[in-house]
């Protein structure tokens, strides 16, 4: 079941290739705008680049998770999921994965190229990639959960960040911590393990919470 949903989502995204390109372009544009605002000082940019990448990741997460369920809602697939015998939580588990893959996998592949523009250290880049790899699925999961909470509302772009940004803070703090430790001491810090723990926690409980939310928001 999980594989079937994944296959369907990937097929849809494959047919509509701009939807994969758009987050990437968005990411690239904002990364290039930061030096224009902050000045071309290489040392400063090198220092704050991981933080910038994380902030843009949050923006990307918010954008993509906000729109992710609307197609399914409009075409009535969400109602069908509700009536089907397959457990809803497994469906949402695969939704988290597919949303993450289409949003962040292209981005993770292109990140080394972007980091050249900021002359980022190779080790720091590796740690940045690892934190993004284990941190962004949690963000996507929380974002999808938040977008289900407000799915019955008229489309409102500013509401979702207000509701779910507080929940992003642990992931952000631990990711930023491990990056700063990596750049100052060149070691892999224990904060990375906590990021993984948060990911496991999110993947274990969020699908269930999402199915509970869907039952409340759609049934009326």
């Amino acid at each position: 079941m999980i594989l079937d949903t994944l296959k369907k989502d990937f097929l849809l995204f494959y047919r509509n290739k701009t939807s994969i390109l758009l987050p990437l372009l968005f990411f690239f544009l904002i990364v290039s705008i930061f030096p224009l605002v902050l000045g071309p000082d290489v040392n400063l940019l090198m220092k704050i680049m991981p933080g910038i990448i994380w902030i843009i990741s949050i923006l990307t997460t918010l954008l993509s998770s906000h729109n992710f369920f609307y197609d399914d809602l409009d075409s009535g697939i969400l109602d069908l999921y509700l009536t089907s015998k397959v457990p809803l939580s497994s469906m949402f588990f695969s939704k988290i994965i597919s949303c993450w893959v289409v949003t962040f996998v292209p981005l993770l592949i292109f990140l080394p190229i972007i980091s050249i523009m900021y002359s980022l250290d190779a080790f720091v880049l590796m740690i940045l990639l690892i934190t993004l790899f284990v941190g962004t699925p949690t963000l996507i999961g929380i974002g999808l959960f938040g977008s289900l909470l407000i799915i019955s509302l008229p489309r409102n772009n500013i509401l979702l960040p207000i509701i779910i940004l507080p929940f992003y803070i642990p992931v952000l703090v631990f990711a930023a911590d491990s990056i700063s430790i990596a750049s100052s001491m060149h070691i892999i810090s224990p904060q990375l393990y906590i990021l993984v723990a948060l990911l496991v926690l999110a993947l274990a409980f969020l699908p269930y919470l999402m199915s509970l939310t869907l039952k409340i928001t759609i049934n009326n």
Partner: protein
Amino acid sequence: MNIKRFGNLKFFYNSFITLFSYLPILVLIGFIAGIYWSLFIAPIDYLQGHSYRIMFVHVPAAWMSLQTYVVMAVSAFIVLVWKVKIMEIISVQCAPLGALFTFIALITGMIWGKPTWGTYWVWDARLTSELILFFLYIGIMVLYASIQDKRQAVKVTSILSIVGLINIPIIHFSVEWWNTLHQGPTVTKFDKPSAHITMLLPLFYMFAMYQVYFILTIVKRIKLGIIERDSQSNWIKELSK
């Protein structure tokens, strides 16, 4: 007495009318007495001088901000599991009060920080997690306000506040690790509180006054919520005549 009667909104409304009509004045007098006690009677602090006295407003507000969240999340849990009507109203009405307590704690903390730390705001662990708690309250209020169907809004905000309750320790732990400048706990140490008893007594008195204020206000808000919720029923229509 049957506990199930508390699920009945009319019974709940009527049973608190007489009990709470004279309390606001008592609470006001109690607060004035507590402020007099903490501003003039309590001894001056050896290190911080008179500026520490804002603690008597600040610390109970910070405690109440957490307690209100727990009350809200527990009643949200009851809403989702047992679907008790009165709990729906309680969980909704807790959020503005909690936001108020958080706001008081933040503002008084900033005022205290200027003479003590030299700045109004530092990105310290406790300040940050209190600020995030404020954002959580705001998010819950905004979510409730923006969903038109209020039955659905209650359930959705209940889910959000329960998830928030799980998240609060994680947030606190994460920012604690991130940065700490705030003074450590002085009251709840396991061996012996490091504040003197003449300072602790007015603090606990103020905390008790905050509790009474919380109960008083929440009951008032619950009554308003009952009227809002049951506005189509006959007994409210008779009441408004």
